[in-house]
């Protein structure tokens, strides 16, 4: 049980490191994108990976408050991506 808890904590820290590397890759992709939809896709992926980092922080520190932060972040990223896609497609937002 004790050894398994140590291994689980190591797995969580390695997964956090991997997600931070993936976030930096997506940030580079937003910076040097091929076209506007590519950059918008990178922004949406950045929001999703930040949500994954918040969930991992909730698993590491055993606090449920990070899940609430993730819910707010998911809603804001969803609305922002939908509005920007509509703006790119139709040249108007509403």
């Amino acid at each position: 049980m004790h050894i398994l808890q140590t291994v689980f904590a190591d797995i969580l820290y390695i997964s956090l490191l991997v997600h931070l590397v993936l976030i930096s890759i997506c940030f580079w992709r937003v910076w040097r994108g091929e076209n506007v939809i590519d950059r918008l896709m990178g922004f949406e992926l950045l929001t999703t990976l930040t949500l994954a980092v918040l969930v991992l922080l909730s698993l590491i520190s055993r606090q449920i408050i990070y899940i609430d932060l993730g819910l707010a972040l998911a809603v804001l990223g969803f609305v922002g991506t939908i509005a920007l896609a509509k703006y790119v497609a139709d040249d108007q937002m509403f």
Partner: protein
Amino acid sequence: MDSVVLFIAALIVVLGTLFSIVGVVGFIRFPDVYTRLHATGKVGVFGVVLLLIAVVVWEHLSWGRGLILVFFLMLAGPATAHALASAAYRIGLPMKGVERNDLVHTSESKS
């Protein structure tokens, strides 16, 4: 019993991280906007949802918020992917290696 739950949670976390890695590698390597969109959908629907299932399994005191977030992600991920694909088609981004375009005579085509 508790160690079995811990083992299942560790397995689910590893699986979700692998799905996120596969999604971002597809986002870098695929040749086209539409195929890249197919790869990035996996990160939202499988990667984060598996991590949230690990939260629901392991932190069993307050599992309702995790399930609410899983439900919202299942709802929002395909809607976002569809909005981005429709915008990419309507501003006229090309598809690579397409032989026959079925969307020419539909309402999705350019006005």
